[in-house]
């Protein structure tokens, strides 16, 4: 358990973060972590319906929610600080005493299937899923967190109970709390009220994805008004010592309206309305990607222009003033993220669960500050020499021009 006392705040936040997530699911169980997350809000013995769970927290003006990721599942509540005990009580109740009623399983299955279909109607999101399929082919990291229509249709209550029993155990859990709270009282409350089982049983280790050997293009033909494109390459994990250099590379390349992609592709060339870059990091892998939303006629031209920007990162070091701007951007975003008790609780819990130790914000900012232009170029040389992968959604009859653009 990690606690940050923030006496000047009026709220307290608590996060229950479980190691796991969609990465640990085999093809048969794809989507089960996300399914469980939905079901845990459907009712417990003491609070038999979703309304009673929501009422308990919203009745004091608080918020309660959850999210499933590839390597973790988090349940959280933010409440006025005098109701911290209530926040803990409701969260402990849903993760330890959910009823998983068969009727709720069937109702929620329909909701999740609709959610999966909805993503396919949102090409800006769907293209990222396709891109991740290319980055991590035949691996759980390359699958939608919510699973597939086939797996969600097939999952039964026994699968769900078995998976929940294996993963919702104390060794898989980190609890984070931040805000105006009494630390000793919080620890006592956790010891007395949390009734998850200790010891692990039936969990499988996460397998690393296989190496990518060649660039690939995946085109999904859709009669969309815009083309939606994601291209990028495998990059660094969150354990890698160069991860901060990668973050700064990403900021220079495509985060915000002063990034190279925005200024050159959108403002100077007028090629795309939306162009930005992003990273994703996991324990042993990650990627850096670029999204382009573009008039279909300009799609390949825009890809070529992005390729030019990627090349320029490997051709010369970024200027000191550009690096300084990127550092201020990164440090500022981190500080803003930690404004809320919720942000602090997530920050601490995430570090403890995934990194196995906690850095203070000053230590983290010092690591960002220590990155040099040579570090960024070294990371660019390394990451951008990997085979590029590109997913495209748009009215395209064939992929040859796209393959030519990335040398696939």
């Amino acid at each position, binding site marked *: 358990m990690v606690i940050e006392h923030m006496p000047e705040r009026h709220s307290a936040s608590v996060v229950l973060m479980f190691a796991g997530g969609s990465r640990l699911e085999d093809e048969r169980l794809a989507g089960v972590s996300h399914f469980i997350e939905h079901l845990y809000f459907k009712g417990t013995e003491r609070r038999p319906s979703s309304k009673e769970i929501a009422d308990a927290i919203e009745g004091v003006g608080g918020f309660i929610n959850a999210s499933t990721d590839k390597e973790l599942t988090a349940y959280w509540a933010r409440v006025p600080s005098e109701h911290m005990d209530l926040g803990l009580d409701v969260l402990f109740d849903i993760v330890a005493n959910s009823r998983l009623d068969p009727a709720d399983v069937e109702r929620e299955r329909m909701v999740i299937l609709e959610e999966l279909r909805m993503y396919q109607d949102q090409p800006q999101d769907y293209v990222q899923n396709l891109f991740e399929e290319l980055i991590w082919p035949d691996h759980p990291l390359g699958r939608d967190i919510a699973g597939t229509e086939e797996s969600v249709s097939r999952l039964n209550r026994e699968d769900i109970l078995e998976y929940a029993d294996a993963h919702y155990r104390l060794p898989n859990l980190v609890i984070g709390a931040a805000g105006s709270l009494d630390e000793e009282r919080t620890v006592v409350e956790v010891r007395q009220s949390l009734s998850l089982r200790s010891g692990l049983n039936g969990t499988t280790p996460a397998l690393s994805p296989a190496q990518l050997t060649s660039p690939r293009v995946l085109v999904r033909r859709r009669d969309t008004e815009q083309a939606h494109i994601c291209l990028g390459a495998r990059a660094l994990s969150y354990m890698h010592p160069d991860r901060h250099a990668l973050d700064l590379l990403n900021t220079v390349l495509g985060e915000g309206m002063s990034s190279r992609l925005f200024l050159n592709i959108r403002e100077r060339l007028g090629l795309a309305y939306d162009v930005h870059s992003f990273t994703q990091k996991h324990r042993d892998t990650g990627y850096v990607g670029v999204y382009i939303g573009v008039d*279909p*006629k*300009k*799609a*390949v*031209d825009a*890809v*070529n*222009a992005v390729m*030019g920007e990627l090349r320029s990162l490997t051709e010369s070091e970024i200027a000191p003033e550009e690096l300084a701007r990127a550092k201020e951007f990164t440090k500022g975003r981190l500080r803003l993220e930690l404004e809320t008790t919720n942000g602090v609780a997530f920050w601490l819990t995430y570090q403890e669960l995934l990194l196995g130790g906690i850095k203070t914000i000053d230590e983290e900012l010092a690591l960002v500050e220590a990155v040099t232009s040579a570090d960024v170029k070294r990371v660019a040389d390394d990451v951008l020499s990997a085979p590029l992968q590109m997913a495209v959604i748009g*009215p*395209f*009859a*064939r992929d*040859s*021009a796209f393959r*030519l*653009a990335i040398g696939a």
Partner: protein
Amino acid sequence: MESNGGSTSRRAAAERIRRAIALINAVADEAGDEEITPTEIAEAIRDCLELSEVDRAPNVRRYLGEALDAVSDGMPADFVAMTLYAALGALREGA
């Protein structure tokens, strides 16, 4: 250092590609009184391929070749236009 002749011929190549794009766009928009045939579009692309400038920047000739194939295969006009815009962009990149 580039000579004036180089930039002039690059401008000429760009102009021919734009002319081919204009023909394609006219088809896509169903504009104009006269019907534009695939043969005319193919001819406009072949005009581009005749210029040696298209070999001075990477991939320009290959995009033009792709565009020509797309016309022969009856691909939609927007798709041909996209490939020609890629050729135009590659020419600009090579500048």
